[in-house]
């Protein structure tokens, strides 16, 4: 009996040791990530004070190169886009941005994030403590993961985002852009002859409307843009016109700039969906010509 009690006590002590270590490690991680220069961590530090803010999914990341836009416009530019970011998640980060930083003059929205789901929550769960909106979405949509972060706080840092936080600890992530060029072989063999773009999700349309309302409230000029697609891929999109009309209907009189066919040269793309650095540079001219910048 004594042995059993001793062993049960050892089990409890082991769990307690885990509990303490877990909290301590999570606390250290939080301190480290607060210092990171990655876009989302910078929101909560404040003082970004950009005049031009860009938001979207991976097409937003690779189509709009903030340092060059800043050079051309002479206005501080900040890209808040992230791979796979849905409009719902983007709206929550945008709210946090406005709460912690001064409002920008112009918000450029890459609209294809209307098709994305909220899978990115797994990746940005480390911000659920700092952001009410992200925390709420995370709890609602991924209750099991949410519970896991409560049991083990370090689980919140189990994501690619944490590694990116470490990587950008002492350098800006605003220079993040693809420099690859799509292989001709890939264009010839792997670009589909017929494809469809996922239609905008209802909850994302609502989130976009909220984002536009916030812009209105803070006197921010919002411009919606469709970034370029590889011409061969764009030609294969069957429901692109339908997709555009759904977006146009949702945004009333906010301008929608369709630059999907602005780049014709495949050397400006890293794959079917994303421009590379050369493409992003070319796109700045198209944005100027269209009055976006």
């Amino acid at each position, binding site marked *: 009996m004594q042995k059993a009690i001793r062993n049960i006590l050892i089990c409890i002590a082991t769990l307690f040791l885990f509990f303490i270590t877990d909290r301590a490690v999570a606390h250290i991680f939080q301190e480290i990530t607060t210092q990171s220069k990655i876009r989302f961590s910078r929101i909560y530090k404040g003082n970004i004070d950009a005049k031009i803010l860009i938001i979207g999914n991976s097409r937003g990341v690779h189509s709009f190169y903030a340092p060059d836009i800043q050079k051309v416009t002479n206005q501080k530019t900040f890209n808040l886009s992230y791979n796979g970011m849905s409009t719902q998640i983007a709206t929550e980060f945008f709210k946090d941005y406005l709460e912690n930083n001064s409002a920008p003059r112009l918000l450029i929205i890459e609209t294809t994030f209307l098709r994305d789901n909220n899978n990115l929550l797994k990746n940005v769960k480390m911000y659920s403590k700092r952001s009410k909106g992200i925390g709420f979405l995370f709890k609602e949509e991924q209750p099991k993961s949410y519970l896991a972060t409560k049991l*083990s706080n370090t689980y919140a840092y189990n994501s690619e985002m944490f590694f990116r936080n470490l990587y950008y600890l002492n350098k800006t992530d605003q220079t993040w852009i693809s420099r*690859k060029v799509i292989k001709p072989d890939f264009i010839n063999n792997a670009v589909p002859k017929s494809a469809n773009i996922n239609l905008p999700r209802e909850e994302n349309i609502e989130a976009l409307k909220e984002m536009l309302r916030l812009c209105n409230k803070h006197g921010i000029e919002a411009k919606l843009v469709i970034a370029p697609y590889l011409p061969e891929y764009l030609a294969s999109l069957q429901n692109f016109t339908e997709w555009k009309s759904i977006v146009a209907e949702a945004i009333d009189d906010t301008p929608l700039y369709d630059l999907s066919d602005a780049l014709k040269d495949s050397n400006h793309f890293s794959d079917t969906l994303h421009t590379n650095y050369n493409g992003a540079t070319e796109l700045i001219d198209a944005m100027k010509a269209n009055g976006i910048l």
Partner: protein
Amino acid sequence: MLFNSLEFLVFFPIFLLVYFTTKGNVRTAFCLVSSYLFYGWWDWRFLGLILLLTTINFYLGIIISKTDSDAQRKRSLFVSCFCSLAILGFFKYFNFFLDSLAEGINKLGIEWNFGTLSIILPVGISFYTFQTMSYTIDLYRRKIEVENSFLKFATFVAFFPQLVAGPIVRASTFIPQLYHDHKFDWKRFGDGMCIILWGFVMKSAVADSLALVADSRFAQPYLYSSLSLLIGVIFYSFQIYGDFCGYSLIAIGIGRILGYDFGINFNRPYFAISFSDFWQRWHISLSSWLRDYLYIPLGGNRHGRIRTHINLLTTMLLGGLWHGANWTFVIWGGLHGMYLILQRIIGPFYNSAINILKIPKALSHLFLIFTIFTLTSFAWIFFRATSLSDAIYIITEIISFEDMRFSSVNNKFQVGKGLILITMLFLCEAISFSKPFPHIKDHCPWLKPFFIVVCLLTLSLFGTFGNNAFIYFQF
């Protein structure tokens, strides 16, 4: 039911509670019913197949042991092996042979299509057929006593920890253990939990994290650069190790808690300094099965050099085919067969060269470890590739060294995480050279709580969750 599922998290504590409050035949019956439940959770229809194999081998086992007539003993063994192999052959290889036959005939210029049957491969069939075969063969060889209790024999065949993906437990090891009423033991519980936890680290943290990189490379190799593909291949080598070793460790750990010893199934295989050493460290229960029931009966190394080489090649080719019905598996087995033959030819010259040049043993070992790992990884390309043409594309693309810049690598952060995990695994295995890593705490019991905490933190920080099935389920 998967070990890494919520269902198992509910199943196992209930099983444990009832297991330790029962005794004798009641406990054995409970083990059998639970094992069938565990298996039936996936597809109950195939329980009939296990029961059929169990019944056939149980009664043939009795005939083999009770009769003195050599002819009848041989006949019974033949029927037993035939039934096991016929069932395995039908479910696993029927479509493969039909396809291969049609392809062969088409190559002769004759248009022929046999069509295929939509056959579901029963999970774990390769494991439990080998287990039942080893029983009747051992009985025939008079190496073990016959098992007269159907209940105990059925439990041996279907015992859930090792039913679906091994280790392939021999009757001589397991059945005698069924006769003991194992009591709950804190030490075994602690040891078992440590082994299970380390198994989960290997599976959920190491294997499943590496899978994200490796799977994408093998799914669409033409999208990736040479360096990306090379990373994919190296990651797969560790993925399959983490995945399979993880499963074996969880099975062994569960067995340990319940009072059973299954032995070890992996012993730091990537530290092997020869291919024969590799096969004494990798999937030990299968390689020893192939050695005892195939290689040695074929003649082993007793009939001269050429026959030895033929026996080695045959054993490895069949070992490859055991893994799956695809020519890629046969090539994988064939490559390992060739490696073993080449090692026998080159080995003596290498050893002489080392002695003459007075190269330090440690340096030679490092070179050998690197060489064995490289050649093993090369063979894994065939094992993992979805087709022969994909495998050849991957190899030619890597060998071309066309784009070896790190900037050409996709998913760099996943790659970074993978490298951290591989380094961690390497260090853990390196510091436990004399014993497999989870056993190292046996030397310092006070390390156990720290070991558990570190495993839990590793799982929390690096684990990839989402009911990822174990690779060896498909075999």
